[in-house]
């Protein structure tokens, strides 16, 4: 059944519309003069001005790998991030840590870790799924390159973006 919408009954000066237009123009001109006189700033002059300081805490930028305080790789190449990644941006090649290595206890590490930043949708599932707290979304947002190859972040680049993260991780915990 159709619903009948009740229309408001307009008075004569409302039907003219002119007062409403004048009211709107007052607001517009108010802003105009504030900006022209330099009292108010609306547009950020990117790229001369950067966004970095204004990013919220929860901002999800480029995913990156982190090392711990002792410069050890946190990632054990479990490939859960590769599995969960919706656009399949992550490719990992695992390898065994040689038995004479100081951290041979961990047995496994990534040999290659590539994130295709053309594919990445910054969803943060990789960070959420990581059992070793090794991958985090950082605040880097200006990911540029002149070729597709350049847009693939390899292990070295990922550690460079990621930096160091403190806190105990399961695999180094002797009790586990």
């Amino acid at each position: 059944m159709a619903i009948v919408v009740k229309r408001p009954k307009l008075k004569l000066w409302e039907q003219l519309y002119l007062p409403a237009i004048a009211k709107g123009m007052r607001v517009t001109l108010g802003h105009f003069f504030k900006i022209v006189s330099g009292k108010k700033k609306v547009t950020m002059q990117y790229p001369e001005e950067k966004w970095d300081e204004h990013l919220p805490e929860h901002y999800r930028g480029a995913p990156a790998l982190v090392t711990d305080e002792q410069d050890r790789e946190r990632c054990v190449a479990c490939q859960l991030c590769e599995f969960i990644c919706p656009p399949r941006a992550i490719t990992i090649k695992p390898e065994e840590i040689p038995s004479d290595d100081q951290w041979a206890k961990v047995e496994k590490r990534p040999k290659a870790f590539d994130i295709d930043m053309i594919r990445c949708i910054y969803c943060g599932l990789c960070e959420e799924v990581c059992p070793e707290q090794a991958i985090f979304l950082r605040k880097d947002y200006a990911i540029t390159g002149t070729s597709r190859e350049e847009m693939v972040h390899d292990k070295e680049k990922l550690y460079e973006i990621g930096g160091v993260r403190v806190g105990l991780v399961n695999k180094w915990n002797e009790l586990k």
Partner: protein
Amino acid sequence: MSEEKPDLIDVQINGEWHSFPKGTRMIEACRQVGVEVPHYCYHPKLTSPGNCRMCLVEMGMPPRPRPGDDPPEPDEDGHLPISWIPRPAIACANTIAPNMGIRTESEMTEECRKGVMELLLANHPLDCPICDQAGECSLQEFSVEHGNGESRFREQKVKKPKNVDVGPRIRLDDERCIMCSRCIRFTDEIADDPVLGFTDRGSHTVLTVYPGKELANNYSLNTVDICPVGALTSNDFRFQMRVWFMKEVKTIDTNCATGANITVYSREDKIYRITPRQNNDVNSDWMPDSHRLNFHWIESEARLTEPLVKDGDQHRSASWQEALATTADKLAGLEGSEIAVIASARMTNEELLITNRFVKHLEAGHVDTVPRTGEADGYLISADRNPNTLGVKTVLGLDDPGSQLSAIQEGIEQGRIKAVISLQENLIEDAGFSADTLKKLDFLLVSYPLANPTADLADVVLPGAAWAEKSGTMLNITGRLQRLNKAVDGPGLTLEPWEIVRDLIQATGGGNGIYSVNDLFQQLAAEVSEFEGLTWGRIGDLGIPLIETGETIPLLEREKERIAKGLIVG
């Protein structure tokens, strides 16, 4: 078979009555009616020591009246009431009894499982992100289904040896071991190489190899398959790929005439591992290491990826059209008696059928295949190292494969044979042809997956698919028809051998309406009497017995004896 009907016994499982043959284990009875009883140490092909305690269930029997009391009254179906025993029983080593009751979902059963899981996880390392077994680990699965979710154990976990080399192909992590003893029983009972055992006591028990020995027998990798956790891992597969990424294809092994049923695990057209697949008429649950690991050549550098045509002394890459046209040109001027076709017993029945057509179409005077023999190992490996010799006899119609090879060589030497078409065979290295002999030919065509000395001499080289890259059927040593399924795509311009032969027939002027390997199978069913009435679907994953050969597989015979003795379930 004039087998007597076995005595059936009524057993109540989770409130419902079912009938099973006398002597059935409780765990098998449950499995048959779709009730899963979690277990670690029990394996139907091994004896049941009952040491993991995971399969504890609540059990009950009819009450036994005290002297003078009335016996219990049966209900209208003849079942007596059950009085439940307050002590749980293991389902793996106990057999069913008349009027027995089993509860797998009761509070007591759940409590037992929870307790066992808690004790197992007290010392088990939580390194699933590193462990290869993650994703197919019984401990992980049962922990989700029956575990506590949180550990109450606050003390230090027991330290045990990690990353131990127990054999050339196997690595042991003692911390992950849950003492199910499956590997110990396998090496003792099936592989007859009892080198594994437990030493030390209590929570310090460790799995060890006998001093000075190693787990090196040709069936050692089966212990990795049956290990319910990640204690035993394969050096070959270690840290290569997580199991959840891989595509599983059910197919058969082509390294010998036994034709062990296998699963090929691949990802993005790269094979990572092969595991045996249960078929109680062929390979039970096992396969030899030598066959299991013989797949790395498939992605070797030497793979032929495009057709090659010889220009002067050098090969140059060509299109399929050009290679086929060159072949047709060269064969056009030759009499049938001047052509020899050498097929392969590694080809499927479908490929052999179309090869037979090709031979008839060319009116080729000489046909043979190359035999391969080795020593039978008394377990699963048969002396015939070709997977489809029986197919050669049945479909290609050769009575004694290999008997014509010397005559063909002689014919080439004397100039009677001017062209050889070698399909999926390496004549110099496998058939004993000499390079000088082959150089006398006017035309040599070789289709093979890998570059080899024979292909070097060929006028036309066609890249043929390897066994994992093609589909078809094969007949094993016992006369069982089994399906070979394509697991990965061949590299480059590789074609399956049946496609190559079909195109050769078309190029040399013959026609055929074959578009798939299934078309060929239908023609096989129509033309070869043994295959009459068969369809691709009827063969199924486990194959069907087709021809009576009288051959047996030694390992299966021994398993049958142990089933008859009641040692194993089978």
